[in-house]
């Protein structure tokens, strides 16, 4: 609870939305802003990685299939970099296959959400992840 209060007290945390579908970006941006987060947007993989390294967002909503560099690759790059390792990552994917799920977990995402998603569940998950370490890491297969 201390952490939560600290979050409420400090400057609003940054959230990066990385997706190549403009309309999905619009909807996610609307949701994040309504929760009071500071929203950054990236349209492809390299741009997303660059933004993460520069802005150190608390959370990244990362689309798995982006041009230039896939979300999985971005995720692995983030985890491999000591400066960004602790960034919370929520993978979004439109591919629902088991192998894709496994790939996502293997790449080191904290959570995994398939499109189309429920806005309420997504927001709940985002809130949990912003709150602290514990409940943020959940098993996507569960």
């Amino acid at each position: 609870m201390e952490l939560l209060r600290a979050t409420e007290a400090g400057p609003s945390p940054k959230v990066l939305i990385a997706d190549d579908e403009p309309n999905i970006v619009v909807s996610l941006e609307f949701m994040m802003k309504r929760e009071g987060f500071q929203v950054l947007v990236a349209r492809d993989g390299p741009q997303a990685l660059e933004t993460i390294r520069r802005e150190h967002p608390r959370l990244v909503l990362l689309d798995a299939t982006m041009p230039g560099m896939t979300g999985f690759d971005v995720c692995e790059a983030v985890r491999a970099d000591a400066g960004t390792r602790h960034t919370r990552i929520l993978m979004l994917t439109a591919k629902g296959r088991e192998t894709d799920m496994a790939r996502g977990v293997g790449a080191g995402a904290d959570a995994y959400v398939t499109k189309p998603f429920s806005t309420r569940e997504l927001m709940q998950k985002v809130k949990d992840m912003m709150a602290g370490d514990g409940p943020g890491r959940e098993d996507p297969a569960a």
Partner: protein
Amino acid sequence: MIPAAVVLSLSIGYLGLLFAIAALADRRAAQGRSMIANPWVYALSLAVYCTAWTYFGSVGRAAAGGIWFLPIYLGPTLAMLLAWIVVRKMIRIAHTYRITSIADFIASRYGKSPLLAALVTLITVVGIVPYIAVQIKAISAGYQILTADGREGWDGTLVVTLALAGFTIAFGTRHLDSAERHEGMVAAIAFESVVKLAAFLAVGLFVTFGLFSGPADIWARAQAHPELARLFSAAPGQFDSVQWFALTVLALLSVLMLPRQFQMMVVECTDERHVKRAAWVFPAYLLLINLFVLPVALGGLLLLDPGRFDPESYILALPLAEGAPALALFAYVGGLSAATGMLIVETVAVSTMVCNDLVMPTLLRRASIRARQGGDLTRLLLNIRRAAIVGVLLLGYLYFQVAGEAYALVSIGLISFAAVAQFAPTLLGGLYWRGATRAGAFAGLIGGFLIWAYTLMLPSVAKSGWIADDFVREGPFGLALLAPERLFGLASLDNLTHALFWSLLVNIALYVGVSLWRAPSGREASQAHLFVDVFSRPAEAGAPVFWRGAARLDDLMGLATRLLGPERARALFEAQARERGLADIQALTPDARLVDQVERGLAGAVGSASARVLVASVVEEEPLAMEDVLQILDEASQVRSYARALETTSAELRAANAQLKTLDQLKDDFVSSVTHELRTPLTSIRAFSELMLDAPDLDVAQQREFLGIIVTESERLGRLVNQVLDLAKLESGLADWHTEDVDLAATIRAAIAATSELFRARGAQVLPHLPERAPLVRADRDRLTQVLINLLSNAAKFVPEGAGRVDVRLTVEPDAVVVAVSDNGPGVPLAEQATIFEKFRQGGDALSRPSGTGLGLPISRQIVDHLGGRMWLVSQPGGGATFAFRLPLQP
């Protein structure tokens, strides 16, 4: 002159050496290190063909008729050309069915007929005994020349004959199962072949280069004698090519049909691949042994007193008269080799036939032999065979004593050849003709044999003065038409050619005619199948078994024990149990296959005809009708074709499976892509709907924006569903095509009109470049319009806002039309050009990319492909893109 003691002891010593070699070979065989499993030994063992008749008779024949000794060796040479086809088949058949003699071979082929086996055996004995006498005569004559011993009464030949009988019994009847090889005998024969060749060559070299100074010298000196010159320089018209041909054919047939050749070539063969080596080594051997025939003959005629020496003895007389007694002795040993080799193998072969095919069937009529209970017969059988060996040799000796002086060696040999040649139609026909029957074989053999006896045997007996010879000169009862040597007035041939012509003509005519007269019985047909198709049979397990009935294991074992002895019988059944994967003999089921194998095992010991009778006596069997044979064959071929089909099918299945896996992977990828493409608009639709539902307080502008997105994404979703279905239909070939004559120019104009709103919205212009007259193409108008609209709307998306320009060109080529849609957009990056026609590959980056499904181009290309055309892209990045397609014009 050489002392008799020397000659005798040399002869006995030589036979002792043969014993030693044979004993060594047998011991080596028992240790599993065969000396005869070697193509050279096999080829040399075939040279048993060259008997004393060759050794002494060729020179005699050459001295009397020049090159007329040659056809006897040309025939075998020709026969060996066919060896790989004919001999190999005979070997395969004999080894598969454990056939041990030519009589057994013929009888087995025609339904395992005991009568046929007996007939062949009789013909063989009648035909061969004089030939055996020839060998004994040669040994005797050689002995007399060397010793110059005129003493009557004492004769070394009887001793030699009895010694040979001992040798043959020792090495020819070691085991009862004559399908087992006689290793010792074969080794001894191969050795003898080397000895006789060496001896003949030694004398030849001695005469040619010792007594004369080379072949040219002999030739020149022979030319000086008018009578000798005449011998070798026959005018062209005098050469009797018919007789030459007849002799060649006769020798060709006899090298395959003579019992000793069958024994060596077929029964004793250890590996049918050895036939390949023998096919050239044996003819080469014949060439070598004939090399010096003419020089020796001419040398004898030039140097020896014609009154004192028979030309058939020149090979001994020349060295003896010219002061080389050691060489003469060596030449004698060579002659002994030639004679003994023939005697040993011939008697083994003939005694087997006499035992299995004459004596056994007689014994089998006695109930005590056939009865299910009874003592061990192996000793009895071996003793029969031993008695037969002694009997055949003594018969030959008797014949030699009685009639030996009457004929020259050569004429007796040829009479024997003509007798065994009678087997040729039946045996060779049986190898290839399924329709041949037992009755046909009988008729052919009896007919041929009677003609042989009448036209060849009788006259030669008459000429020797044993019977009155007027019937030869004038015909029986004065009927000239039936004169034995001028049958039906055929007088232009010599007596041998004449006899061969008539006997083989009657033989073949009866064999074919009678065979055609009646269809084969079940058993004949089944044996025909087993012989003719011996190479097409697969592994033992898939072979058909022509037997139906019921048997008891104990009966079969009892029978085998009595005839093979307890050890071999046990081994036979143990092998069968192993083959079926059974631990114990008692677990064997007495089914048709087991009965068949037991019968084969017995056939090796007593011949297939007797084995058949014996097996039939201990089992309950059903007669084999033609329908049964066909059914069994059918079943066997079904099993075979099932196996084959199974193999083919599993290979096909593997291939299909691999293909399916690939297809599955493609489908999986496609489904995954489609899912992804469907989920994307759905995500927006769901997200905005939920957001609006949860936040009723949104301002109107925001609501309108969200609703607009929902509508756009819904449209995208609908488009996507349509295109996926469309593409699936095109790819699966289920799409409907309405082919008609299409005016392409008009279609282009219509497509431009349909997309004009898109271009106007982006402030772009479309410029058509159409020829005044364009040929009609055979195509589906709606599909073509779909392609054009797709290309145009793609162009509209990518042209720069407000300055767009799209050119549509239609060009007519001699056999095709080309439509090109060019825009002045950014062009397609090189990296994307290769994949631009693949599904879900949209051009441009995500942000600037106009809405699209990524299926328009794949669909368009699919359509163009279906119409027999081709679609391609030309683009310089930054220089616009041109999508074009070509459609062929129908001639």
